[in-house]
């Protein structure tokens, strides 16, 4: 049924049958068609102006800077780009960044899974406080994150003399960089998993329990397959931050070339030496990492949308 008023509505608004159709039939004068459309839709001028404003804003702050990274990286051609990456110091930085991510991402993924299990599968006092505490590193400036690691393990830090007696170096060495990264990337996986597992509920796990599955079996056969994409995206985010962290790592690294420089620190050094092309060439690696992150996000969104559609279709089918 398409009343006169309904066809006046824009496509997205046609769901509203009852009130609109009723008022169309009623003798009480309904507002004119064009008036209604004016009240629901933006006039074309406004549309174009707002869209232009939005695109202009995004261009000035996001798109142009992103384009600059690519253009500057490839300015001297592919050979120069490759030369900047094949430089021994750059290779050492890449190796260190991969190592640090390989240490911090699995640990934080394990933590995220445990935290999400504890928070979404049980009720207990102090849970809200726990959730807030997990978010804490997000509220801490990266410089402060690095600084607390120095206060803990530095020469005058709490464990400084203990470490010095045993000849162990944490600050201005690889372990410090790994610990600072661990701190900074701490909430990412937990933050992705908690809302997702909360929304999913406990029915499937409880069904498995009734059928005699042990805790580990439930985790492996029910929970992990259910949350794998969410977990994957959390890991991608965590990894992107681990590889890209600058402030915290900058405090604890000591900037020793070829030894304690990560990719972002190497970019900084090249840039401050006015080796712009090389700086952007190395930065383009991190840019690609950011693109991978965005693609993963888009993929997850599409997957979740299709999963939602599937659930709706199944539920309507069972209704029939």
């Amino acid at each position, binding site marked *: 049924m398409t009343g006169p008023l309904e066809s006046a509505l824009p496509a997205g608004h046609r769901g509203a049958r009852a009130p609109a159709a009723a008022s169309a039939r009623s003798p009480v004068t309904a507002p004119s068609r064009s008036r209604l459309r004016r009240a629901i839709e933006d006039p074309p001028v406004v549309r174009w102006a707002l869209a232009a404003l939005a695109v202009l804003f995004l261009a000035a702050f996001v798109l142009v800077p992103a384009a600059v990274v690519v253009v500057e990286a490839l300015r001297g051609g592919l050979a120069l780009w490759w030369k900047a990456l094949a430089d021994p110091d750059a290779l050492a930085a890449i190796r260190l960044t991969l190592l640090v991510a390989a240490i911090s991402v699995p640990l934080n993924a394990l933590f995220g899974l445990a935290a999400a299990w504890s928070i979404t599968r049980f009720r207990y006092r102090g849970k809200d406080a726990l959730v807030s505490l997990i978010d804490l590193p997000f509220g801490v*400036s990266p410089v402060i994150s690095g600084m*607390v690691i120095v206060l803990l393990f530095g020469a005058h830090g709490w464990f400084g003399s203990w470490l010095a007696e045993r000849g162990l170096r944490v600050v201005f060495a690889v372990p410090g960089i790994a610990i600072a990264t661990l701190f900074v990337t701490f909430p990412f996986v937990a933050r992705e998993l908690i809302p997702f597992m909360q929304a999913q509920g406990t029915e499937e796990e409880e069904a498995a329990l009734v059928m005699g599955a042990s805790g580990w079996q439930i985790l492996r056969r029910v929970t992990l397959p259910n949350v794998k994409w969410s977990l994957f995206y959390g890991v991608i985010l965590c990894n992107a931050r681990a590889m890209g962290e600058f402030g915290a790592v900058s405090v604890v690294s000591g900037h020793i070339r070829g030894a304690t420089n990560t990719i972002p620190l190497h970019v900084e050094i090249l840039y401050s030496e006015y080796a712009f092309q090389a700086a*952007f060439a190395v930065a383009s690696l991190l840019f690609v990492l950011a693109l991978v992150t965005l693609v993963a996000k888009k993929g997850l969104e599409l997957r979740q949308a299709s999963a939602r559609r599937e659930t709706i279709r199944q539920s309507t089918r069972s209704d029939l």
Partner: protein
Amino acid sequence: MSAVRRLAQRDRSPNRRKRGVLPGFGLSTGFTVFYLCLVVLLPLSTLAAKASGLGLEGAWRVIASPRALASYRLSFGASLVAAGLNVLFGVVVAWVLARYRFPARSLVDAAVDLPFALPTAVSGIALTSVYARNGWIGRFLEPLGIKAAFSPVGVTIALTFIGLPFVIRTVQPVLEALDPELEEAAAVLGAGRWATFLRVLLPAIVPAALTGFALAFARALGEYGSVVFISGNMPLKTEIAPLLIMTRLEQYDYGGAAAIATVLLAVSFLLLLCINRLQAWTRARAGHA
């Protein structure tokens, strides 16, 4: 032991019934709390200890020194302006993305998240190149008498970039979830577009926009990587608070660094508290509507 008996046994414990029936409470909660203490709380507690070691008077001398005051002024001022710009343009972008269909829309939508995904050092050098005097955009600002890079304007630009996704990503879902019937009802009742926007749409947007503002502000306050390249780092002029902490650290003045860090951290946590309240408010609003 059969599963049913195991379950029956479980149910006998009143604690477990209250908590939930699934196994692994002790292990998961224990590990979570232990790891949290080890990785986050222990390091953060050093800060309080170090700052208090300075004594009240000593800490005050550092916190209220002219250089520190100038850095707070710049950090707070630029973060406020940046978060404000983000609310203004963020609502427009969220509106356009939620309501209009146009070519390359999903590309624009994806670009919104770039500031989250791009490492700060990369954004820092990219923004500096774009807004420097001979940069792609900077060269057009120069004749207008605007010195973008190496000035407070540059700091604001970097902080706007870093906070850009927050407002958009909090307002956009609210707009998308808004029932079109609300607007239709307003229209049928005789409201014009402007009245509908002011009295129906705006009240729905405000809590989300405020949350986005607070999130962007909190992020901007602590930001370091993207700012240090574009700011020029002149003491008293373009030195942000996190950079001042860095400078103190490089001079091995850990007490002074800790004092300034405590100020910054206190404000951040206050903001987080506000954000929690705002989010609860947004949820209550959405549930109500």
